[in-house]
């Protein structure tokens, strides 16, 4: 039954509100221009670019290898994944064979970083929804991942660990044992999160049936990663367009199931990330068991000049598909480096899905898409 409101009896005026760029729940400096009718959002238009640093231009002014530290700054919660994606892209362009041990190391660090990135996503999302405690749990576990990374590359946030042709240094003695220890500690924690917050009635109430994205829209608007799988499409580049040593591992592609409401709502996108942490643990256990001995760097000339050509490489990062379109003109610098980032493309659908929601739901939408601003603005 739809209630008809007599507009003359109850006149309301549209209001324009600025949400951000400084706003605690926009995960950075995202500005959303809201047009609201009471508490209902008539239109929410994202305004991005506050963190634009011209990384694509910087890429053209630096040799291939020197751009590696800048990829850390694309998605600072998943620097390893960005590092590795760039390295894989350049290796595809130049046709470099990477030693198998290096590929295993990359997969191990990427999956560890996926766990820590999903932890932050889970923690900040629940904090946005008004439950602060889970954030502290997430940070506690992430700390251990940071410790592990610090041991192999000296950094805790921007790692600069991958190199074109391998990784900067071999794993330290006993590192794999520590990873195993972490996994044994971490795996039961996922169940703890579910008990703590996932099926909490208020939390579910805030997310179920909010901002439903249909599978067709997902593909048309270029959503990738957990946001795509949240709408029930089992597409994962690690399985469907395999790169590196991913074909060696057995893991499940997690999809949303419409568990608490309609398929493709905020809850589905959230639960996919929780499930994916389990799969990452699975991949890590297999990788630790299978990692071979050997060198960690291929022979790459000091002055590295790939032959003229163009290539596009995309990798499955925690936030979706990160792609590099590289053009080489035969010199030491890339002629062009287009960086396709998942959060940027995701923001395209924002205006469409937020129409008719409550203002408080906007926060849920931003959190469930798990956007990160430096990656949007580049």
């Amino acid at each position: 039954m739809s209630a008809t409101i007599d507009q003359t009896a109850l006149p309301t005026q549209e209001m324009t509100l600025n949400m951000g760029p400084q706003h605690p729940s926009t995960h950075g400096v995202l500005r959303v221009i809201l047009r609201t009718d009471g508490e209902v959002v008539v239109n929410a238009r994202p305004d991005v670019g506050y963190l634009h640093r011209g990384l694509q231009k910087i890429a053209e002014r630096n040799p291939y290898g020197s751009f590696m530290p800048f990829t850390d700054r694309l998605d600072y919660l998943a620097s390893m994944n960005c590092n590795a994606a760039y390295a894989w892209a350049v290796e595809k362009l130049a046709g470099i064979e990477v030693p198998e041990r290096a590929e295993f190391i990359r997969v191990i660090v990427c999956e560890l970083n996926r766990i820590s990135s999903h932890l932050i996503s889970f923690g900040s999302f629940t904090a946005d929804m008004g439950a602060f405690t889970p954030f502290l749990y997430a940070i506690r576990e992430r700390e251990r991942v940071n410790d592990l990374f610090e041991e192999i590359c000296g950094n805790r946030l921007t790692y600069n660990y991958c190199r074109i042709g391998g990784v900067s240094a071999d794993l330290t003695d006993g590192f794999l044992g520590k990873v195993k220890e972490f996994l044994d500690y971490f795996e039961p924690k996922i169940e703890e999160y579910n008990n703590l917050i996932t099926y909490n009635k208020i939390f579910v109430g805030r997310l179920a049936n909010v901002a439903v994205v249909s599978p067709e829209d997902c593909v048309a608007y270029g959503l990738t990663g957990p946001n795509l799988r949240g709408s029930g499409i089992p597409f994962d580049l690690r399985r469907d367009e395999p790169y590196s040593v991913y074909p060696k591992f057995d893991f499940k592609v997690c999809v949303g199931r419409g568990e608490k409401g309609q398929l493709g709502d905020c809850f589905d996108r959230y639960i996919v990330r929780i499930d994916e942490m389990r799969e990452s643990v699975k991949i890590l256990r297999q990788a630790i068991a299978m990692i071979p001995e050997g060198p960690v760097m291929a022979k790459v000339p000091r002055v590295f000049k790939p032959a003229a050509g163009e290539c596009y490489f995309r990798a499955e990062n925690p936030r979706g598909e990160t792609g590099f379109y590289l053009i080489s003109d035969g010199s030491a610098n890339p002629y062009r480096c287009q960086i396709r980032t998942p959060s940027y493309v995701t923001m395209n659908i924002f205006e469409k899905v937020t129409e008719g929601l409550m203002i408080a739901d906007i926060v849920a939408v931003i959190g469930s898409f798990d956007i990160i601003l430096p990656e949007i603005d580049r």
Partner: protein
Amino acid sequence: MSLKDIHLDAKAIFQSLKTRFGDAVVELQETGFNPAFVVVSPSAILAVSRFLCDDPSMKFDSLMCLSGVDYKDNMAVAYHLHSMSLKHIVGIKTFIPKDAPRLDSVDSVWPAANFMEREAFDLFGIVFSGSIDLRRILLPEDWPGHPMRKDYVYPESYHGVKV
């Protein structure tokens, strides 16, 4: 799917486009290109896109990446397409003159194109006619010029702040 399959597909796609669109399909860029590019003339880009998206043998339902490129003599827009159901990949490229970089927008075919086109407009100055919303996106509204062009001259200052 191996890399070889992708290349084979590109050839078949090129043939299929060639028979349908004739001279509007210029060439196949294959050696050194991964994935291969089908070069089409700018006037046909919308029709070709529509065909690639809707045709049951193509089904390129997802636009992975849209990039502007400045090749010094002319400019280009590169589209990387992927089919979720048929799992094939192809690149489409179109060259446009540098003094009048104008092209039909494809956001009616792939809505994902909108933000990517806005980026190409912002950083390269490529105008996508028929776009639903073509404004600068990453740079401020009043930024002079398009910085990703190869002949871009860096400004001395912006609003009195030294760059």
